[in-house]
């Protein structure tokens, strides 16, 4: 059944089949870089603790950027830290994704007006895939952000680079 209902316009079947498997593999084993900045990091730890368990989705914290696929920017990005985050992003091997967690890393958050040392949003330094609003976002919001990211990876394709 699955074969017939896939219309033939979007690339032939073989590519589509390979895409699905590769995308499924990438989205179901997102290894997270264990890196937290501020209050959102505590909510991220609560998410990977027993109550909201990140591990159910295959997210495993890895200490080194070389083995990480997704980096969750959880907290306020200051100017002094921004150059470090850019270098961390560059250290990660390629199919990598960014979740910007919390309004501080989305757009500077409560520090947008008088924060002379706060970077107004991490997307000025690195390309962000999913923004999770909230200050700090609840663990359920972070899980929903992760599902959004998995959604995005599911639709990626080898043929045409979406992002």
């Amino acid at each position, binding site marked *: 059944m699955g074969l017939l209902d896939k219309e033939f316009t979007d690339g032939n079947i073989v590519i589509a089949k390979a895409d699905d498997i590769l995308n499924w593999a990438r989205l179901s084993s997102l290894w997270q870089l264990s890196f937290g900045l*501020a209050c959102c*990091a505590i909510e991220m730890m609560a998410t990977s*603790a027993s109550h909201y368990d990140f591990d159910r989705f295959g997210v495993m914290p890895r200490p080194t950027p070389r083995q990480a696929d997704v980096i969750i920017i959880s907290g306020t990005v200051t100017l002094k830290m921004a150059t*470090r985050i850019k270098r961390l992003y560059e250290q990660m091997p390629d199919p990598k994704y960014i979740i910007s967690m919390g309004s501080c890393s989305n757009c500077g958050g409560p520090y947008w007006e008088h*924060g002379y040392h706060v970077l107004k949003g991490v997307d000025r330094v690195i390309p962000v895939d999913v923004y999770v609003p909230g200050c700090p976002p609840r663990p359920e919001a972070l899980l929903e952000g992760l599902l959004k990211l998995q959604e995005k990876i599911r639709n990626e394709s080898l043929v045409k680079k979406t992002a």
Partner: protein
Amino acid sequence: MALKTEELVLNMGPQHPSTHGVLRLELELEGEVVTNVKPHLGYLHRCFEKHCEAMTYPQVIPYTDRMDYLASMYNNFGYVVGVEKLLGIQVPERVEYIRVIMGELQRIASHLVALGTYGLDIGAFTPFLYCFIDREKILNLFEITCGARLLYNYMWVGGLSHDIHPDFVRLTKEFIPYFRPHIKELNDLLTYNKIFIERTVNIGVLPIDTAINYGASGPVLRGSGMKWDLRKNDPYSIYDRFDFDIPTGKNGDCWDRYYVRVLEMEQSLRIIEQAIDQIPDGDVQSAIPKRIKPPKGTVYSRVENPKGELGYFIISDGSTSPFRVKVRAPSFVNLSVIGEMCKGHLVADVVAILGSIDIVLGEVDR
């Protein structure tokens, strides 16, 4: 011919699994032995004091939450006590009792994170998750009263933002017998574990006079054996009505600082037990002034934050927004002692010592 050895500078950089956030420690090493530690701060400097000058008195409270985001109830508590001293207003009894209960619950939650991440630093993964399970129970209590899990904006100048939930008292009474055996379980799992003791006893010993000279406070000072707790020595709010004792360590090493926190959790349970039955009724927002314009003057108020002595120095010039607020953050001062404690230890001990002084970077960098 002597072996030519060189100093190795190792960067435990802003992104490091064990630095509790964005702190960079520059270690100068001889082989594995640390000769000098130079902390580099400021990676989370969020300009709190600049915001205080631009905001009115009530608007500053959400920013105090975000300083020590593990004990934000107590940050509000310190700031609010200071402004009330400046205004000279007296808060109703009900508010005082609720503030003490919330403060002590927050102390238990903050110590749970401290003990859990300390187990992580020494290499035991499981206690961290057990501590977070108990902490979720406390966060539920906070959530039903003020709607937030981590940063509450709950204690206002002169009162509280919400009255406590009708079945808050019942839930708290259920929490106490639920949590007490868990402290014993944590002790069996980690405190009396032979390897844990091997890793923490006689590591990072801090004598009392260096502790006072460096201004260390809270569990770090009490771990060195000094019986100093602001709730007893410089009482504020209604802490003098409850009887609880102050646990102190013997020889000021990492194990003592860890164990003082475990005992303090029991003491906080005792306070909550006494306070939960005597909550008088009344309106929690009766004493909140319409426009907060304190007279021209200065005040330095200090409270016993779970991390140590949190002080607010508020200068008001008579307008509705503070002229200058300087915060004496306990983690900032406790961290300055790390250079002294780490000399002559191994790299693994630096991680243990950093975990034992339990710093929160939001407070260190403000």
